[in-house]
């Protein structure tokens, strides 16, 4: 192939490279284009402050706590009722949890008769499922993060939770037994993050 022809060909290729680079940059910068971001979901949990109360002879005790965290998958309320007083009859302990935007849940257990007994009751309040989205379209990673939060955030469970502990049973004792009650809430939640997809290279 003649040298002049080759040089011309090289010139055309380099010119195309230059023009292509400039056009590509202008189009990329000026024309909004969305791209695909991969979405990953992780779950975590945190415990809130334990609360204590006591009552004599049975009845209802109410606890409340505030939840600020969003994206809850479930709340778990653990109540321990213990008593060192003598109880001639077993008592039924019922824990009812009322959370914002969730169905009221309750669990019961029996506190045996006798002395030095305790019962632990765990009430699980299902909230929201972890989203299943695996990708999101956005202009850049900041927008992807913002859109992800906007699209998949849920406020279910955010607000005031009320936990009612009810101790019921036939009262035949001369002295009313004392009950120590502790309540510990734990919240499970999901978090979403976006990553730029990178090719999976074999070589």
């Amino acid at each position, binding site marked *: 192939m003649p040298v002049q022809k*080759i040089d011309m060909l090289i010139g055309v*290729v380099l010119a*195309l490279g230059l023009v292509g680079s400039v056009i590509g940059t202008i*189009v990329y910068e000026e024309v909004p284009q969305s791209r695909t*971001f991969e979405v990953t979901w992780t779950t975590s949990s945190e415990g809130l402050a334990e609360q204590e109360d006591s009552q004599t002879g049975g009845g209802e005790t109410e606890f409340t706590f505030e939840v600020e965290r969003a994206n809850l998958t479930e709340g778990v309320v653990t109540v321990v009722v213990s008593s060192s007083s003598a109880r001639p009859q077993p008592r039924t302990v019922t824990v009812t949890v009322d959370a914002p935007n969730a169905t009221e849940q309750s669990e019961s257990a029996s506190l045996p008769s006798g002395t030095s007994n305790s019962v632990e009751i765990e009430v699980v309040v299902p909230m929201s499922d972890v989203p299943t989205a695996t990708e999101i379209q956005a202009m850049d*990673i900041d927008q992807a993060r913002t859109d992800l939060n906007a699209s998949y955030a849920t406020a279910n469970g955010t607000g005031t939770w009320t936990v009612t502990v009810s101790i019921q049973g036939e009262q035949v004792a001369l002295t009313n037994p004392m009950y120590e009650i502790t309540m510990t809430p734990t919240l499970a939640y999901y978090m979403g993050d976006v990553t730029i997809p990178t*090719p999976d*290279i074999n*070589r």
Partner: protein
Amino acid sequence: MAEESGGLIPPPSERAQFGSRIGFILAAIGSAVGFGSIARFPMNVANFGGAVFVLIYIGLMVLIGIPMMINEFSLGRDAQKNTVGVYKTLSERENTPWRFAGHLHWLVAAFFLSWYAVVSGWTLKYVFATASGAYFNDPEGYLAGTVEGPDALIWTLVVLVIVLVVVINQINKGIEKVNMVLMPLLFAMIIGLAIYAATLDNVAAGYTFYLRPDFSAVNLSVVTAAVGQAFFSLSLGIGSMMVYASYLSRQTSLASNAIMISVSTLVFAGICGFLIFPLLSAFGMLESSSGVAGLQLIFGPLAAVFTDMGSPLGQIIGTIFFLAVFFAAFSSAIALTEPPIAYATEEHGIDRRRAAILMVGLIYLGAIIFSFSTDMLNYAGGALTDVSVLVGGIVVALYIGWFSPRAKARRRMDESERGLKLSWYVYPLTRYVLPVVLVILTFFAVFGSPCLLSGDAPGGGLMQQLFGWDALACVPEASAQSAP
């Protein structure tokens, strides 16, 4: 059937040759080691049964990788020509239809480099970014700004200019000299980093995760993953090995060289595991990184490890790591330029300097597209490249096994003054086994496979990437081993 009738053709007197056997071996190792060796092979080992996977991989390397390498070497070394010239010379016909196979090889190499240069550009940028701690505050945000856009284009251009500076010289003065320096340096860096990683706390879980033999993890997916790794990790099917061997003297044993190159590649990839898993373990990222491989592992969890190390330790260790990754990528990149440059010089009579500028320029035109679109890059670097490379391998196997006279094919493989002669083993494999295995791999690459070949999504094949058609379901238990 056998259209070839030529014997051993003397090399053109002006054609350069490798100056030494070690120069050829190091250049071939440089071509073979890349992102896959650093971050895919170790993760495959960890996810597919630990030492059991290594044994299966070695078996398949003996069965597939080394024979295929000997095949490519034998064609190039005998013809002493570029990929198109190989088929013309050995067929003794200018217009042989096999010349299209030669065109396929150099075109695939050029296409491959057009996206590989972009990814190499990311790596080079990360050398400097790690040294300055530029991404330590927001690794994901920094990566997003790296992988596409004007920035990606500039770093791609930088890589291609450096490639051009090397390949503009004859093979013995450019590629050979550079690899003589780069490869020992690369091995030293990886070994040094692995030793450093061993000194960290909480690394035992990393070693256990990497090498724990797990026979229960062995299934069809593991075997297929090992087959893919054995083929793809040796830079086969793209003409690089064929053209490199065309610069090789007839005195050296092809089988001995192929074994040495394959073993060195395996050792290199194995050492990378002793670097990666202790690092991930020491920084509590072993579990979250399970199943993440290749570039995703390098720019994701490993970059995060250096961020967690903080300054200045993370900057120093991370810079050495990314420099090693860049060296591995760069040595592969310069190998990918040789098939197109050799084609231009020998088939069109263009001098090497102009041929190098022209071909690297054309490759840059393709790279512009991939610099501005990660979606396009994903398509190109995924199943599309796999299919192209596999078809290249099938063509070589068919040509040698079915369209070359048996005696000549075997003589090409064995010709040497001393060293191993393995044609008694390689030829029957090439004729009866390799085409079948490669066709199966191609089927998986097109229609999807059990989570392995290279589709970036489970079950991802070319059809899924292009049309969203997921023909074969992924086998989820393929990556069942979880981090301790």
